[in-house]
């Protein structure tokens, strides 16, 4: 018995996708392009919050804070990723990024940028991850 064989989607895999085109009013053939993340905040600010951006509160919730903002601030008295905030507050990720952006603007939270894949991988980082996993 032989396993089924994979057919490559394209003859030669493209190294990197082209820069994203505007999603609005798309008439593109790619069905994926018909979908975008729902909700407000289609701007650069939201894109700056990654799933694993670590958020830390800088202050107690002020009286002016909305209930959602106050709840988020209480959660991140210790650093917490945006993904964890989304899970604990039971809010979609885009809603969390809007909240975080508001709190960043009000200087009530600090954001610690994620480590993202580099064109040339960071060897010392990967070595640290290896050693950490070996200790598990």
């Amino acid at each position: 018995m032989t396993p089924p064989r994979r057919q490559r989607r394209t003859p030669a895999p493209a190294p990197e996708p082209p820069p994203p085109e505007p999603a609005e009013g798309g008439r593109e053939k790619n069905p994926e392009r018909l979908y975008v993340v729902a909700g407000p905040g289609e701007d650069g600010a939201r894109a700056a919050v990654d799933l694993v951006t670590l958020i830390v509160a800088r202050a107690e919730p002020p009286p002016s804070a909305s209930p959602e903002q106050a709840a988020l601030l209480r959660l991140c008295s210790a650093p917490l990723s945006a993904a964890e905030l989304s899970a604990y507050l039971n809010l979609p990720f885009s809603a969390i990024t809007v909240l975080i952006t508001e709190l960043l603007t009000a200087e009530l939270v600090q954001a610690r940028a994620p480590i993202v894949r580099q064109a040339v991988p960071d060897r010392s980082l990967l070595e640290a991850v290896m050693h950490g996993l070996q200790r598990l």
Partner: protein
Amino acid sequence: MDFNGSDTLPGPRTEDQLPHTAQAAAKIVIVGGFGVGKTTMVGSVSEIRPLTTEETMTQAGIGIDDNYGSESKTATTVAMDFGRISITDQLVLYLFGTPGQQRFWFLWNGLFEGALGAVVLVDTRRLEVSFDVMGRLEERGVPFVVAINSFPDAPRYPIAELRRALDLSADIPMVECDVRRRASSRDVLLTLVRFLHSLALTGSAG
């Protein structure tokens, strides 16, 4: 949801809080077709009880998406399981497992672009359910390893034969695993990170 009443607010258990020294986090994605063991793998290596985050994708353009749902359906929810491993006091690793329709995962901004790499889980009873995601990772230049999750009644093929079937070049690591076991899942992650490290040594782009 009621956000008042701080006593009842959900949140991490005290022992699950990250130290204030936590400076930055990285992510690895665990992908593969329906039922291959993604959630099990996230759960077996995570230091926290696995959590779920979700995002709603709405239909933006005109035209009918004949692959998804009925004509009236214009939104879909993409949910991801995730877990966490503290690497050092400064560095945290998150693992994201992506269920559901694979094409939607790639709309999640930054998930694949920013990930250090991916683990593709395959089940030899249904190899083909992981074909689509491999093509997408290749197109986007996301480095990955392939982990064969050994289900008891699954056919066993020599790795070389699986490599041919999956049309993978010799440098892409393939390992067998039982993702229910923490040590086995950890070894899969180590295989990925060693592979990424080897790419750094050869100077290949990620």
